[in-house]
């Protein structure tokens, strides 16, 4: 191989490597460095303080509350989102007649920007003029002030998040379901399996690669949720919707505690990595690739 040919792969990789280095790798390293420093607001002065930022975090009740909120938000978004989207996808897969129209309908929220979607939900959740409370009133139920009540705010934000992500999940599940040969379901039917047994023993195992991918993406998206929280509740009421990401945003861009926010970013990165590693470990036993 001549010199020119040996340089070609590097030349082709260069644009991607340059973009990743500037926008991903360099900021990540900077965050890690900053997490061990005390950075003076609005200046370039910073001092190495070791693990002090991490100590502050671990001793902060607000941070622990945001961790609790993030955990609740994770459960309230990922599990319902997976269950509902899988149910809808299975229904659409079994009823091709509905597929085209409903697929577009469910995909629509994905195409809307998260700020626009959040504005829609502000209208829906409005305690006096909102659609939700109007319909509850019709049913004789007095609806709460969804976004201002500490008991319902996180649920309300979670519902809007699930609604927004449903279409994305449905598309992947539909693609996964359509890749399962119909003959396998017929063979199971002849083997004596009923609808649930076919789903449990044939469809679900063969859908597991898709289920795994969608669940990893959902967990990461949920842990990184920001836009809808910022517009719907700005982390309130009483910190009940302040997730780790929202706490980080406030420390970095409201309180200008860059060092502390960087340590939060490092902790969040570690948490996402742990969550994804656990998912990959589980996947080794449960996911069937062809």
């Amino acid at each position: 191989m001549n010199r020119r040919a040996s340089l070609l792969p590097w030349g082709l990789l260069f644009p991607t490597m340059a973009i990743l280095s500037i926008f991903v790798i360099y900021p990540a390293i900077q965050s890690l460095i900053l997490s061990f420093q005390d950075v003076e607001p609005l200046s370039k002065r910073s001092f190495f303080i070791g693990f002090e930022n991490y100590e502050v975090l671990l001793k902060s009740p607000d941070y622990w509350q945001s961790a609790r909120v993030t955990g609740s938000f994770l459960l309230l978004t990922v599990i319902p989102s997976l269950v509902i989207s899988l149910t809808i996808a299975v229904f659409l897969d079994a009823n091709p007649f509905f597929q085209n129209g409903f697929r577009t309908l469910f995909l629509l929220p994905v195409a809307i920007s998260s700020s626009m979607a959040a504005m829609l939900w502000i209208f829906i959740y409005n305690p006096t003029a909102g659609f939700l409370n109007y319909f509850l009133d019709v049913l004789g139920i007095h609806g709460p002030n969804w976004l201002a009540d500490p008991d319902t705010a996180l649920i309300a934000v979670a519902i809007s998040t699930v609604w927004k992500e449903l279409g994305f999940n449905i598309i992947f599940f539909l693609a996964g379901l359509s890749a399962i040969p119909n003959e396998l379901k017929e063979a199971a039917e002849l083997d004596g399996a009923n609808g649930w047994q076919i789903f449990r023993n044939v469809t679900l195992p063969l859908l597991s690669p898709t289920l795994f991918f969608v669940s990893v993406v959902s967990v990461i998206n949920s842990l990184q949720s920001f836009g809808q929280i910022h517009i719907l509740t700005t982390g309130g009421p009483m910190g009940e919707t302040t997730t780790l990401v929202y706490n980080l945003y406030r420390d970095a861009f409201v309180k200008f505690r860059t060092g502390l926010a960087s340590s939060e970013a490092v902790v969040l990165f570690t948490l996402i990595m742990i969550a994804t590693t656990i998912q990959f470990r589980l996947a080794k036993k449960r996911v069937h690739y062809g």
Partner: protein
Amino acid sequence: MGVYMASVEIQKVRKCFGETEVLKEVSLSIREGEFVVLVGPSGCGKSTLLRMVAGLELPTSGTISIDSKVVNTVPPKSRGVAMVFQNYALYPHMTVRDNLSFGLKLAHVAIPEIEKRVKEAAEVLGLVKHLEKKPGQLSGGQKQRVAMGRAMVRQPKVFLFDEPLSNLDAQLRVKMRTEISHLHRRLHATSIYVTHDQVEAMTLADRIAVMNQGQLEQVGSPLELYQNPRTRFVASFIGTPSMNFVEGELLYLIKAPHGVASAGFRPENTFLKQGKVSLGEGQVVLVEPLGSIAYIHISLKGNYLVSEMKGHDWPEIGSTTEVFIDDSKVFYFDSQGKRI
């Protein structure tokens, strides 16, 4: 393994998909223990008929009975049938053992009995070494054996085969065909086998049902269909290479009776050196040597004929040669394709 037998009675079964009628009042009786092959070109409705016996499709009208019991509305699992699919339809996430035992577990068969049946089927089909493997680790032939084993362990009353060998290479297809034949002789199970390959049909069947455009053209033993085809379609479909057909001027030379639209004779009754009746001279367009025999393709007065020739004394491509036939072995058909 146990002996599983049931009769199957298909009476005036029609099937429509929307406006399209794919089966037109098909009736067929299959005796206990009989091996019946449904053969016909693609789209003739043979797989649809098989799927209706399995319960995977509902007939638009007519009845299907298994063991004298109408099963039109009986779900597939309760019909006592097992099916071997064209693409094997093995569960890719399960081991061979789990594939074989899945149906038995669903039927709550006792574990020792499941193990016994799986072991027996694995021994019969030579799968003992592969029981812990997943289908992805098996060859095409092994997958097909697992598919057959899955049908066997259920001890069904009727075996259904939907083009089970069409995904295998030619050599393996011949081997598996022999195995299916051995298996049938051993189990004496009632079997319905769908194929578009007439060689498979001829070698496996007790009786062949030839289908065309949603209808049964003729049902009979392989030899009966070969020696006594009732329609031009059956005559052309059964036998390799296909029967030669002549029309027009050549009909006078073979003194065809009145009303004949076409006459047919098999390649083995078409001769190049000598014979009873000469059809005149034709041009050799292709020679297909197969070892001990060769097929000589000849163009003669607008007709395309094939002669089966023994030995190696073949004519050159492009040369002219006189063609003879044995007029006692000619079949005559009317303009509707019916035998006269």
